[in-house]
Structure formats: C-alpha cells, structure tokens
C-alpha cells in the first residue's frame, strides 16, 4: 500500500479510535493520539526519501497525491510539532473531560494538514482544507464556552476564505478542464488562463485567512486563546503555516515564475498585488505587535504575537527574491518552533497555576525553572536577538528588504520587532520574574512529559542559532521545487551582498560565555538584602486599597506607552466587521418588511412574479 495513503488512513482511523476509546476510559484517547502520531511520523520519516506518487479516481475525479521537496519542508513542521504536542498533551489534558472529541479533532487536523500538503489536485486540496478548518473549529469551541465570541469569528472568516478558494477552483476548472495543480501551473506558464489575476487573488484570500493576514486576522487571537494549549502550539505553529504554504505556491510559482513576465499588464498587476500583500504583511506585523503589548493574558499576547510573526513571513514571500523567500521559510519554521514552545510553556503555567493572567501571577522562576528556561530561549528567538535562530531569519529579512529597495517596509519591520522586545519582556517578567507570591508557593514544575517536548524545541532553537544550515538544507530543496535555481547556503556563516559576514559560532560562543558568567554571579549573589512583601497589598506604601482591587505593577505595565498609542487602539477592525454585519442585518430586516402578514399581499407577489416572468420570456428570449 502506498505510504501517503497509509499515513492519511492512520490519522483518520486514529481519530475514530480516539473517540471510541474515550467511551471506555477518558484517559485512553491521549495515548491513542500519541501512538497514532508516532506511527504516522515514523512511517513518514522511513519512507519520504523514496518519493511515491499516488493517483486514483473517485466518482470521476482524478485525485493525485505526491511528495516533493516543498511539501517535505512543511511536513517536517507538521510531524515535528504534532508528535511533541501529542506527547505534551497527554499530561496537559489529564483531568479534562470530553477528551475523546478533542483528540479525534486533534488527529483529524494533523492528518488533514498532511493531506493538504501532499495534494496535487484542487479537489483533495479543498477537501482536506475543509476537514482541517472544521476540526480546528471544533477544538476552538471544544470547551463549550465563548462560542459566540470566538468560534463564530473563526467560522465566518474561514467561510470567506473557503468560498474564495472554491470560486477560484471552479474558475480554474472552467478554464483548463482539470483540477490538477500541475496542469494549472503549466497553464500559467503557457498563459492559458484568461482571468489569472482574479483566480490568484481569490486563492490568496483563501490562504490569507489561515495565515491571519491583516483584514482577515481577527479570528486568530480569539481562536488561539480559546483552545487548549496543547493544540494551540499546533494551531499557531503548523496550521497557520498552511496559509503560508498556499501563498508560497501562488506568489512564487504563479507570480514570479509564470513565464509571463514579458507581458506588461500581467507583470504590473502581479507586482502590484505582491506589493499590496507585502504592505499588508507589514501593517499586520506592526498593528498586531501594538495589540500584543496591551494584553494582560499571556495566551492572548502570544496569539497577537503569532499574527505579527506571520506578517513577517508574508512580507518575505511577497517580496519574492531568493533571499526573501529563504528568510520567510526560515522564519516559518522558526516560528513554528518557538511559538510551539511558548504556547506549551504558557500551557504548563496554566495547568500548574490555573490561570494565564499576567496580573495575577509573578515570580514563578524558582517554582518552574524548566518552563522559565524554555520561555527565555523562545522569546530570545522571537525577538530576534543574536545567539538564537530568530536573529538569522530577521537578518536575512532585513537584507532582502534593503537590497530590494523596500526601505519603508524596513522601517515598519524594524519598528515592530523592536516593539516585540517589549511584549516578550513583559511575558517573561509577568510570569516568571518579580516578587514571588505566597499564593503561588505551592506550585510545582510541570510533569516530565510536558517539559521534555518544550525543552526539545528550546534546544533546537539553540542549535539552529549556531548552525542554521540544518534548516537551510530542506529550505533550499523546497525553493528549488518552487523554481529558484542555485540556492546557496552556509552552515554557520551569514554573509550579505555587501561583503560583511557574521560567523554565528563566534557570536554564540561569546554570548554563551557571558551568559554563564552572569548566571554564576547571580547564583552566588543570592537574595541578601531584599525583603519580600506582597505586591498585591500596597497599604504599606501609604495607600489604602479597596478590597479586591489588584494594584500590582503588572497592571498598566506599559502605561506610558499605551497612553501614547491610544488613538491607534480606538479603530478596531473588529468594529468594522461588526458594523458591516449589523448593517446587513438591518438591510435584511428591511427586506423582511415585504412580509406584511396579509396573505393577499403574498398572492400579489406571486402574480407579479408570474407577469414579470411572462414579460421577460416574451420580450427578451
């Protein structure tokens, strides 16, 4: 049997099995999920070297599944995160009810993500895409709370994307008569598609929803913060990359290597679209960063941060030069790793303390040292500070933007990654540093099965910070599939077109030594001379707080900044969508007035319709 079909089958039957096993015991589904993911992953890594294509036909539709290098790149993300998240999940979900449906959807979404990337025809692509959307939607509303607030936004936005994509697929089929992706790319090469731009833009809308691009991003913070953390790491790390996957295909294979660059109109429109997308990515990064700054909930903060990071990736893909695409794909993988680690860390805090509200927690560093270590490493990578791999991606992105002449975008990206320092410091400080509270004194470190996946991800970040070549290799292969030729990369040295180069080994050695010295100093310095007081009781400083009033410094952490940026927060996209929805509702309410309650009026409508039909048929046909 074909391995690809076998992997899909394993995941889908594993989902069924997970649900059925929950009828026996609520503890079983977690292990079933872990076993399924492990089997699938092992099967994939055993067989992906010898490429196997599979094509079969169901009810007259030819479905083609195959692996290629671009696919393998994303398969690494999916399986890597999937297996770690399912390991993490076993303990994380321990005491929660209804694990059966959670794990069934968990496995369905992982399986369908793999299905999406191996699909070489639009039909199975769309079907897997919808399975992915639905399974993730069911996890978003899994805990049964906040359906109206969170789930409906996700569903509405996904519906917009799905309809756009379906329209594009139908248009493509009407032009070329087949659903095959390869035939579509060939037709693009031969300029055989009349309304190619419309098709591309519709496809891009469909992918932009999942990649949480600016006007379509509003579902993301709600959905990310409402899912259990063990799935959020997959959700934010891998599932959003499906949008990136699709955008890469469209932006690179259709826009950049279409064989139509000589056509002036076509080149103009495609470049315009790319520029718009790049700017949307930049705006997304900036705005989402600003929103991340003012969040009090760690999970929400990470959700906004995810949107900002996806913005960088979209910029890279939209710019479309060799270096930009490389940086985008590198950032995509790195984002999957560090955001997966961060969501897991926050999930661990949530499980041990019971909340992720940063105004209620502080000083967990001694209680949860491993989680602190993972968070520290991850946010260093997130902020793009040298010794870790985030720096590599940012470096390449800056260079790509500057060499391409997008100086304003450089400013935007620079601004948002600077602001990223602020929020990443806040999450570190809010959860782990500061005064240790009495009510968190009993907190223990998370269980080993939760810590190990996080630590693996953190170690991966450290290693790739010094040896980014490990990741560059599959990226280079993937880019060759997309159409780039002569992709060069180096294991440890970053060099740019101006002749400067950074040897990452020296950098990480230097910083590592400095870090060790500081750690030794701080360990021996101890806590002499500091006196612990409750941060939530500030009557000692002369003020008499009201009861139940939380006055810790965690509140209004960035108050001066917030005051400065206040006008920006006033205009929320959510409000625009809500206004549109309310307007539509009012319109439909107005339309409803034709139902007067008088049966005769309805009869008049019928006769009027009949007469109109008669006139139309008699005079126009």
């Amino acid at each position, binding site marked *: 049997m074909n391995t690809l079909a076998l992997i899909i089958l394993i995941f889908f039957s594993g989902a069924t099995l997970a649900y059925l096993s929950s009828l026996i015991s609520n503890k079983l589904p977690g292990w079933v999920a872990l076993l399924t993911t492990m089997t699938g992953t092992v099967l994939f890594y055993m067989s992906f070297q010898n490429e196997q294509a599979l094509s079969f036909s169901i009810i007259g539709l030819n479905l083609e599944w195959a692996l290629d290098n671009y696919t393998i790149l994303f398969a690494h993300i999916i399986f890597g995160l999937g297996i770690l998240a399912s390991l993490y999940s076993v303990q994380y979900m321990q005491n929660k009810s209804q694990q059966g449906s959670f794990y069934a959807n968990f496995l369905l979404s992982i399986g369908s993500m793999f299905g999406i990337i191996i699909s070489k025809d639009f039909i199975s692509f769309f079907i897997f895409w919808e399975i992915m959307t639905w399974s993730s939607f069911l996890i978003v509303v899994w805990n049964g709370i906040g359906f109206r607030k969170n789930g409906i936004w996700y569903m509405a936005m996904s519906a917009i994307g799905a309809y756009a994509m379906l329209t594009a697929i139908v248009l493509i089929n009407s032009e070329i008569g087949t659903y095959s992706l390869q035939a579509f790319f060939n037709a693009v090469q031969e300029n055989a598609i009349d309304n190619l731009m419309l098709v591309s833009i519709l496809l891009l809308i469909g992918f932009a929803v999942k990649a949480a691009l600016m006007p379509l991003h509003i579902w993301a913070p709600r959905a990310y913060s409402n899912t259990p953390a063990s799935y959020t790491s997959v959700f934010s790390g891998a599932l959003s990359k499906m949008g990136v996957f699709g955008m890469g295909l469209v932006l690179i294979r259709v826009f950049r290597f279409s064989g139509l660059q000589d056509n002036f109109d076509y080149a103009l429109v495609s470049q315009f679209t790319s520029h718009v997308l790049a700017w949307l990515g930049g705006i997304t990064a900036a705005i989402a960063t600003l929103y991340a700054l003012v969040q009090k909930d760690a999970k929400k903060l990470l959700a906004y941060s995810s949107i900002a990071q996806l913005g960088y990736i979209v910029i890279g893909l939209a710019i479309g030069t060799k270096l930009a695409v490389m940086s985008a794909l590198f950032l995509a993988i790195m984002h999957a790793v560090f955001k997966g680690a961060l969501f897991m860390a926050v999930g661990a805090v949530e499980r041990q303390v019971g909340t992720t509200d940063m105004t209620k927690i502080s000083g967990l560093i001694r209680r949860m040292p491993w989680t602190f270590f993972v968070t520290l490493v991850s946010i260093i990578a997130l902020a793009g500070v040298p010794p870790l791999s985030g720096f590599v991606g940012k470096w390449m992105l800056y260079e790509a933007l500057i060499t391409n002449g997008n100086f304003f975008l450089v400013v935007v990206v620079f601004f948002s990654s600077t602001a990223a320092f602020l929020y990443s410091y806040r999450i570190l400080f809010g959860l782990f540093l500061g005064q240790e509270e009495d009510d968190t004194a009993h907190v223990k470190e998370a269980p080993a099965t939760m810590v190990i996946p996080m630590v693996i991800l953190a170690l991966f970040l450290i290693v790739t910070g010094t040896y980014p070549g490990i990741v560059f290799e599959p990226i280079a292969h993937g880019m060759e599939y997309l159409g780039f030729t002569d992709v060069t990369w180096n294991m440890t040295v970053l060099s740019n077109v101006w002749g400067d180069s950074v040897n990452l080994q020296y950098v990480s050695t230097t910083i590592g030594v400095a870090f060790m010295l500081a750690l030794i100093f701080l360990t021996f310095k101890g806590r002499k001379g500091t006196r612990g007081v409750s941060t939530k009781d500030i009557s000692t400083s002369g003020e008499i707080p009201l009861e139940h009033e939380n006055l810790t410094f965690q509140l209004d952490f960035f108050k001066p900044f917030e005051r400065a940026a206040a006008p920006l927060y006033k205009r929320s996209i959510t409000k625009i969508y809500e206004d549109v929805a309310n307007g539509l509702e009012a319109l439909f309410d107005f339309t*409803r007035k034709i*139902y*007067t*309650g*008088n*049966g*005769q009026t*309805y*009869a*008049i409508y019928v*006769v009027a319709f009949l007469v109109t039909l008669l006139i139309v048929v008699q005079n126009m046909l």
Partner: protein
Amino acid sequence: MDFDFQNIVTISVYGSAIALILIGIYAVLIKKHLIKIVIGMSLVDAGLHLLFVAIGYINNGTAPIFSPGYEDAATNMVDPVPQALVLTAIVIGFAVTAVALSLVIRLYKHHGTVRIDEIKSLKW
C-alpha cells in the same frame, strides 16, 4: 382579422373564459372578505373549465357518444379528452372549495373576523 361569425364566437368564448379567470384573480387579490376570495377562486375554476372545453370543440361536431343509430359518427366528434379532464376538475374544484370554506368558518371562529387584512398571523 375579419369579423365573420367564427371570429366573433372565438373572441366571445375565449374572451369570456379569460375574463372569468381575471375577475377571479382580481377578487382573490383585492377583496378583503374571505368568502369573496373563495368566490373568486371558484370563478377562476369556472373560467379554466370553459377554456378547456372550448379548446376541444369542433365546429358542427357532436358529443362523443355513440347514440343508437349513430354508431359510425366518430369522424365528427369533438375531442373527448378535455371533457374528461374537466369532469375530474369540477369535482376536485368542489372539494377544494369545501375545504376553503371550512377554513373560513374556522378562521371566523378563531379570529372573530372574516376580513383577511385583520388576520395578521401570517406575519413573519
């Protein structure tokens, strides 16, 4: 169109049938009293029946019955099919009218009125 007898008959028969239909629809659409509406419905019925029978008619034809002594008259008979259809339709029309009238009675019992514009429970 020259106005010979044939055309006069054509116009008067078809015209009266169509006029009956239109009058009936007018009553259904405009009249407020439910019984008037049901009257309108039966007028539409009547007009349709006339239309059907008129289509099957043949000049100087005979009824489709082989009366004793006229057993070979088949060449001169009017079309029996519309007549059979109308025969059925009249009986069904009575059933429909009876049910409609019973609904009128029921509505009157329930709402205390037979004016359709005062019965607002169709509002959505």
